[in-house]
């Protein structure tokens, strides 16, 4: 029965006519988009354009914001995620990594095992397996296998961020949302996370918000450009960065805005 629920979540995101208000302020205006499965989709646009707000709609993180009102049809696979669903189950399937690494103040092991424990897994051997698999998926096992029981807060910023990715992976998500995951990291750590995304997309759909245009061109299959709450242009990354159709996209990505 449980397996059936897990399988019900697909790996593509389909949004039709999304509108979102923070109080009186309309942050998203009539956005429709189809995000394909097992690809990397990048959201770009100036600060305050609504890209992070839109990303957070995909696992209902905006539910936690008071005064936030959302309209429209949001589907992960076939599931209407604003219908009658278990939000915890949604967030298990749609993981999230934030700009600032936020490991829990506990050991590396406990960070990864935290999610599975809350889903009711208590058997040590099973947890060991999940921790190892997740760290291997995040390409960190060799680095951390001897430090599993040390505090995660002692890791470098780049390691902490990859640990957060590993922690998300422990829940076996179908989709991973990443909100500027490398903006606080040095180029080497950034490179490692980009390599990781390239590897993860074989299994998982990734949606990333980034301010780094080169990062979008390097890693994203699809790119969406947002401006003032509107989705201005969405398409193959190669097309967006070589021949954008909308002049506003052109002006933004070439640094001519303003």
């Amino acid at each position, binding site marked *: 029965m449980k397996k059936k629920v897990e399988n019900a979540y697909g790996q593509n995101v389909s949004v039709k006519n999304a509108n979102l208000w923070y109080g009186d302020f309309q942050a998203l205006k009539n956005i429709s988009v189809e995000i394909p499965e097992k690809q990397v989709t990048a959201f770009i646009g100036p600060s305050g354009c609504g890209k992070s707000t839109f990303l957070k709609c995909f696992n209902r993180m905006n539910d936690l914001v008071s005064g936030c009102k959302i309209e429209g049809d949001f589907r992960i696979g076939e599931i209407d995620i604003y219908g009658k669903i278990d939000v915890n189950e949604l967030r298990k399937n749609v993981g999230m990594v934030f700009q600032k690494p936020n490991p829990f103040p506990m050991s590396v092991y406990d960070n990864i095992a935290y999610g599975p424990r809350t889903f009711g897994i208590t058997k040590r051997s099973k947890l060991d397996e999940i921790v190892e698999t997740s760290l291997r998926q995040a390409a960190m096992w060799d680095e951390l296998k001897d430090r599993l029981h040390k505090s995660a807060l002692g890791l470098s910023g780049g390691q902490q961020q990859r640990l957060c990715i590993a922690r998300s992976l422990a829940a076996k998500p179908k989709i991973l949302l990443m909100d500027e995951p490398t903006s606080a990291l040095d180029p080497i750590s950034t490179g490692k996370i980009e390599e990781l995304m390239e590897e993860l997309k074989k299994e998982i759909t990734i949606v990333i918000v980034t301010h780094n245009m080169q990062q979008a061109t390097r890693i994203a299959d699809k790119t969406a450009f947002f401006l003032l709450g509107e989705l201005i242009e969405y398409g193959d990354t190669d097309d967006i960065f070589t021949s954008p159709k909308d002049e506003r*996209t*052109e002006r933004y*990505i*070439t*640094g*001519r805005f303003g």
Partner: protein
Amino acid sequence: MSIRKIFEEELGALKTELVEMCHLTEQMIENAITALVNRDRELGKSIGQMDKRVDEYEMDIEKRCMRILLKQQPVAKDFREVSTALKMITDIERFGDQASDIGDLVCTMSGEKYIKKLTHITAMGNLAVKMVRESVNSFINNNKSLADEVIQLDDEMDELFLTVKNELIELIKKDGKNGDQAIELMMVAKYLERIGDHAVNVAEWTKYNETGVHVKV
């Protein structure tokens, strides 16, 4: 100075150098035809020297484009302009090569009396200069319709080439002694016809620069 302004200045300098390179090749084609008509060995020889300068331009512009791509990482129209320039210089360098090859031919045939009037070959030379100039101008001025005109002009070039070719075949048929010079004149005509083809390539890159789609005619 803002990053954007630096980029625009670098792009401006790149275009200036591209125009200079193009002017040099136009002059080389003009000199090649003049040398041919006047049987001027010295002028024919000097074209090879000018070609060295064209090669230097190619290297300079190539470096400039590489530096812009590396430092500015341009996207969209900016990216297309730099990559178009990078592709174009190969064709512009070929204009120079072909003119220089005609100069070499003039040196080998300068003493001989011509077996035919050079009217059509001269017309091909003038047309080649026009196509070269307009193809590069179409890029510099972002003028897609001028690029289309260059592509149209190539039909005229091909017709002139056919006319010259047929005339030369007739001359060989008439007297086998005409053969040596006929082949040399045929090569001159072929080089000019190739210049037309390279100008079409440049025009096609201009269209890519404007539309983002590269279509071979």
